């Protein structure tokens, strides 16, 4: 099966500063990949490139076989994106946002939309200007799940929430996300979350994917299925090994 996302040799410069240089990443179907990396290493830039919001200086990107620059609207209809901060007009309400998005997504599922709105108690008629951080994050999550996309892109979607709200949002996400034939790329700096959500962990350093391994491989599950515990600490170790190695 073709990968859901294929990024090959992608470079991106801002001025004379290279943010990404020759980055390769493939997301196979039925998988969730967590992207780890220090602040300012280009994680958000990578997401913008995948969405066609930025043009790569070199390299190719394919989302379900489509080029985000050439087929921008077709690609956006296949991607459910949660930005790190809601990129929505402050006067809009969740109800207006969903009404605005629905026609842009051929597979938008109103049952998923209303199930999540109810489960997460989203105030439909309150403007983004007055929604709490948690309510805004929940609304953006609905906007990424209801379209039943081929690719889910989540940029710090669960950060800044108080722990109980975070668990509710996470449970709703896991109850509704459909990964059959699809893939998810999740950016987070929370290692507990990375261990919970990721089948695969990719580490971004110096403009490239410095490591991309299954969580079992990274956390040392042995042949007989033993080991493999203490995952957040092992992820932290892997992260610092890669960062030290790439700095040398």
């Amino acid at each position: 099966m073709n990968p859901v996302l294929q990024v090959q040799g992608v470079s991106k410069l801002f001025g004379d500063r290279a943010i990404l240089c020759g980055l390769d990443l493939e997301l196979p179907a039925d998988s969730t990949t967590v992207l780890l990396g220090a602040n300012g290493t280009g994680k958000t830039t990578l997401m913008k490139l995948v969405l066609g919001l930025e043009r790569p200086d070199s390299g190719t990107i394919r989302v379900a076989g489509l080029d985000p620059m050439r087929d921008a609207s077709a690609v956006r209809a296949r991607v459910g994106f949660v930005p790190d901060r809601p990129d929505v007009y402050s006067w809009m309400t969740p109800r207006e946002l969903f009404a605005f998005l629905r026609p842009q997504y051929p597979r938008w599922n109103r049952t998923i939309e209303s199930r999540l709105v109810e489960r997460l108690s989203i105030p439909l008629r309150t403007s983004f200007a007055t929604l709490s951080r948690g309510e805004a994050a929940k609304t953006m999550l609905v906007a990424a799940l209801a379209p039943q996309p081929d690719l889910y892109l989540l940029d710090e979607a669960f950060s800044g929430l108080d722990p109980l709200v975070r668990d509710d949002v996470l449970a709703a996400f896991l109850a509704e996300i459909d990964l059959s034939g699809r893939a998810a790329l999740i950016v987070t700096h929370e290692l507990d979350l990375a261990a919970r959500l990721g089948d695969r962990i990719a580490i971004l350093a110096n403009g490239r994917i410095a490591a991309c391994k299954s969580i079992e491989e990274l956390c040392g599950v042995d042949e007989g299925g033993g080991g493999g515990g203490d995952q957040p600490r092992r992820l932290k170790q892997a992260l610092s090994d890669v960062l030290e190695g790439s700095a040398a």
Partner: protein
Amino acid sequence: MNWNVDPGADKPPSQQIVALILDALARGEIESGAQLPSVRQLAAQALVNHNTAARAYRDLEQAGVVRGKNGLGVFVTDAGPKIARGLRRDETLREFARIAGEALRSGHEPRALVALLSKISERKSA
């Protein structure tokens, strides 16, 4: 039932789920023939990804504890509770032997450990 999983614990999340289900079976909280949550529901309750939940069910199926019926869901087999009791007893006995060895090496008297065991057992049956 509490499906709480901690990625920071010694065992990986899928094995923690296996242990939670085996314990619930061994205690009789889940009986043979009972339907378990779907992979998706289990993932949402344990807050782990779908493949982790699916792996837990695969391991339980291999042990003969559960059986997936196509399209219908996951069910506890007739022998499930018995197998679960065996597996959990073997595992906890091994763990007990290890801890007991450690306690003896650190200077506890065997008599004191036996007394502690009777006290715990009395407290449990009280």
